[in-house]
């Protein structure tokens, strides 16, 4: 009876210790490690051996593992940040070179810094989210969603600045749907699929509700642009759906 109580106590402490592992590792192995510790406690209890020595050894051994995994995790995060920073710099070369050859493209240094931060931020979001699941379709879904979301946000920002028409801010509701949906879905593939379909539907609704009266060529271009974004969000949703179904197999 006393061993049972002690065992429960040790298991509670062990579960708390496991929280010190980096999150991805904990999500992958935390349950299994707790189960293994439970099995070891049971083995000792059945052999009528005390649990103190076992708990002391396992706690020490696991603590060493925690230090090792955190060190590895930090070094991987550092490498990822460096890769994303270099990637963002490479992408920044496009507007940098374009500003030299395209007439009227006159960003100041602050503009380039702002764009670099946007590229870097988007890249880091991809790097962090894409490692949630190993399936290629999940990673591709994240990539397509981020590229489409970035392009929509960017083009809208430019459009609002040029036209000074605050009505265009309605397009940000598509991104808001994406942000809230991703948060509610906890980045799980199934929920993200629904989120992306909801984003596509929101954008299609905005396109339908646009006031008519624009010249035909403008209306046609707008329709094509909306269609491309709706197709991209839908494609991303389908990729997440594929990842979700693959995860169930």
């Amino acid at each position, binding site marked *: 009876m006393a061993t049972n109580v002690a065992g429960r106590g040790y298991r509670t402490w062990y579960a708390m210790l496991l929280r010190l592992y980096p999150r991805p*590792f904990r999500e992958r*192995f935390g349950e299994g490690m707790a189960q293994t510790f439970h099995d070891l406690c049971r083995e000792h209890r059945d052999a009528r051996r005390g649990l103190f020595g076992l708990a002391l050894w396992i706690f020490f051994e696991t603590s060493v593992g925690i230090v090792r*995994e955190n060190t590895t995790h930090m070094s991987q995060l550092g490498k990822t940040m460096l890769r994303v920073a270099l990637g963002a710099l490479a992408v920044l070369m496009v507007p940098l070179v374009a500003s030299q050859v395209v007439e009227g493209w006159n960003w100041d240094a602050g503009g380039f810094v702002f764009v670099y931060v946007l590229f870097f931020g988007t890249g880091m979001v991809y790097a962090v989210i894409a490692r949630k699941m190993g399936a290629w379709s999940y990673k591709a879904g994240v990539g397509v969603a981020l590229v489409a979301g970035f392009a929509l946000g960017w083009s809208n920002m430019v459009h609002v600045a040029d036209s000074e028409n605050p009505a265009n801010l309605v397009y940000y509701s598509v991104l808001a749907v994406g942000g809230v949906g991703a948060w509610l879905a906890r980045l799980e593939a199934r929920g993200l699929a629904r989120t992306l379909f909801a984003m596509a539907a929101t954008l299609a609704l905005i396109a339908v509700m646009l006031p008519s009266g624009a010249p035909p060529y403008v209306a046609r271009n707008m329709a094509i642009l909306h269609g491309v974004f709706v197709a991209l969000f839908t494609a991303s949703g389908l990729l997440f759906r594929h990842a979700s179904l693959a995860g169930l197999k």
Partner: protein
Amino acid sequence: MAKKNTAQAPLTPAVLHILLALSTGERHGYGIMKQVQADSQGKAKMGPGTLYGSMGRMMEAGLIRESDKRIDPEMDDERRIYYELTGAGRAALESELKRYRGVVAVAEGRLVHGH
């Protein structure tokens, strides 16, 4: 034991023991631990920190993979995650055993001939 493949690189004792334990079938964490203990006649003692840390790196290297969650009839009704060898894992184990056999042959030759 870093990235994919590893067939040529010597394996760490923990990785070798885990591969050996899984060579006869899929096992859950505790099952692997017990098998390692049995294979080494109690000489190798592996705690959850070493076991799961090694398994994480082995999964990244494609040597093992999660098999399924299921009930172990000998333990209780809790669901456990089972692990199994991949083709690359089996190849890495065979390659390591071949390397060991080579080392043993050299060592025995030296002991017999004295040089």
